[in-house]
């Protein structure tokens, strides 16, 4: 097929393809500028930012588990003002579509960070982190309550014209009800899932493997659960969904899209293979050609649940 269209929009955010580097997994993007053409990605979701600089947890911060990993980084970051002066101009220069992940310990902090970024040149969207499982104050206390989710999203909505994309936690009974709260509050899209709260223990030493004791599980181990949650949210809301959770290859991107994701984020896989992006793009184009799909967006939510696929040996 001559013209393959992989583009999509989330509010006013226009992306040439659905592949976004996941927040917390790609630094501020510039760490990768020598080996990844940042303009080739659909977007770059930068590391979560508070108002102030933050040091995060002491090591050990990650541990590998079967087909996955736990992390408890603790949102180490340079703060929103240094981000704007040191990182944002370079991201613009590199042609990145920058989705800035924002955090807060209070509602006021979220609003303030959002306001500051709205006045900066080169921010394409705000991803609102209300789902980090690894810090006690802020974030998750909003993301685990429907009222909290609604109030953070609507408060940010009032101070910015940028696309607002809350990132939802999977550590609730019904992520779909949180998707609904986000949509009702005026979100332009939602990202899901953040990591699953988890724990790993060194049995010889009888101690947790992470200094924070618990951490968030990512990687292919969580993918089927994340796909199910995206599919449930797609039944509940009409706004775009950015799906994520253990995407390792193009087939996994397609699985999320068929479940209802308009775009995806890739995190853990880019740790293993920092050159994964062109491979994913090639894989998507190959699928579109094989299945005669000229517009990738046509696949969003297109899973046919009337009967199961034929089992392969």
């Amino acid at each position, binding site marked *: 097929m001559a013209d393959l269209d992989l583009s999509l929009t989330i509010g006013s955010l226009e992306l040439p393809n659905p592949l976004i580097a996941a927040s*917390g997994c*790609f630094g501020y993007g510039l760490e990768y500028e020598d080996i990844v053409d940042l303009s080739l990605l659909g977007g770059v979701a930068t590391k979560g930012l508070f108002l102030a600089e933050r040091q995060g947890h002491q*090591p050990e*911060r990650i541990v590998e588990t079967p087909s*996955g990993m736990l992390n408890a980084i603790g949102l180490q970051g340079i703060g929103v003002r240094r981000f704007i002066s040191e990182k944002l101009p370079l991201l613009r220069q590199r042609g990145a579509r920058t989705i800035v992940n924002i955090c807060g310990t209070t509602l006021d902090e979220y609003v303030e960070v959002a306001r500051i970024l709205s006045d900066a040149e080169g921010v394409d969207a705000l991803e609102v982190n209300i789902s980090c499982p690894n810090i006690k104050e802020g974030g998750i206390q909003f993301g685990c309550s429907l009222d909290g989710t609604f109030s953070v999203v609507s408060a940010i909505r009032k101070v910015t014209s940028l696309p607002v994309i809350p990132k939802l936690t999977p550590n609730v009974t019904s992520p779909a009800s949180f998707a609904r709260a986000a949509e009702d509050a005026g979100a332009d899209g939602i990202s899901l899932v953040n990591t699953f709260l988890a724990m790993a223990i060194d049995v010889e030493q009888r101690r947790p493997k992470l200094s924070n004791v618990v951490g968030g599980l990512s*990687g292919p181990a969580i993918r089927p659960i994340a796909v199910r949650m995206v599919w449930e949210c797609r039944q509940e809301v009409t706004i775009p969904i950015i799906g994520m959770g253990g995407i390792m290859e193009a087939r996994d991107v397609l699985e999320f899209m068929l479940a209802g994701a308009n775009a995806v984020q890739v995190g853990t896989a880019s740790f*293993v293979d920092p050159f994964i992006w062109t491979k994913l793009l090639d894989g998507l184009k190959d699928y579109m050609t094989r299945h005669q799909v000229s517009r990738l967006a046509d696949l969003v939510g297109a899973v046919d649940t009337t009967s199961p696929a034929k089992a392969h040996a």
Partner: protein
Amino acid sequence: MPPVDVRATVLSNVRLSRDYNVLTIAAPEVGALTEPGQFVMLKTTEGSDPMLRRPFSVFEVLRDDLGTVRALSILNKRAGRTTGLLYSLEAGDTVSCLGPLGLPFNPPTSGEAWMVAGGVGLAPFATLAEALVALEVPTTLFYGARTGDELYYLEYFDRLGVRLVLCTEDGSIGVKGRVTLPLEEALTALAGPNETTLYACGPEPMLAAVARLAAHYGQRSEVSMERTMGCGLGGCYSCVVPVKHADGQTRYVRSCIGGPVFDGAAVVWD
């Protein structure tokens, strides 16, 4: 130069003991770019179990008779899943090798170079010794292990003209005790500050001790830190080391891009 990722064939795997091996892989693209102290991220298997790469210091950069880089090796010690797999690889197997990564050692601006290695911490010093000898820097290796059987590549360093100070915990070769014993003795014998640069790699208590000794005797030190890493490229913020900055603040620095070689005086030790 940006790092490259190569699917490298194992050329040889020499088991030095039940735990240690030297794995030589055909990754000349990586080897040719490597400076002493830099590391590679290795993955032994396709798929997601184990999933993440693991960081290893480049041990040797191997050249043919014409001086062209043909391979690199790593010094491996069996401890976990990936190191166990690296121990059991055979010639003809392949590994994925991403590198070179991280900041290298800085050669001394004047005076001597003293390398201090504990156990598998010998790894970055084969290439450093070569570079120092090429710069005609008088070089000493203080090298400690549990037993004499675990002191490796002594001939290699001897051949380069590196002075060897050996010690073992069981006293079977050299000084009995920790490597910091003969090191402190040697530091005491120095006439004044800034006569030597110390380069250390090994268990963290040893690195802390070397950094403190260096500071106490007015000598510069560089330490190669080992941390659990997710990506090796600055993406994940897993591998941080607390470092005192010029403004007096202690901040976590990613050892993959701000290290693994650090100024021993700047690291905040436990």
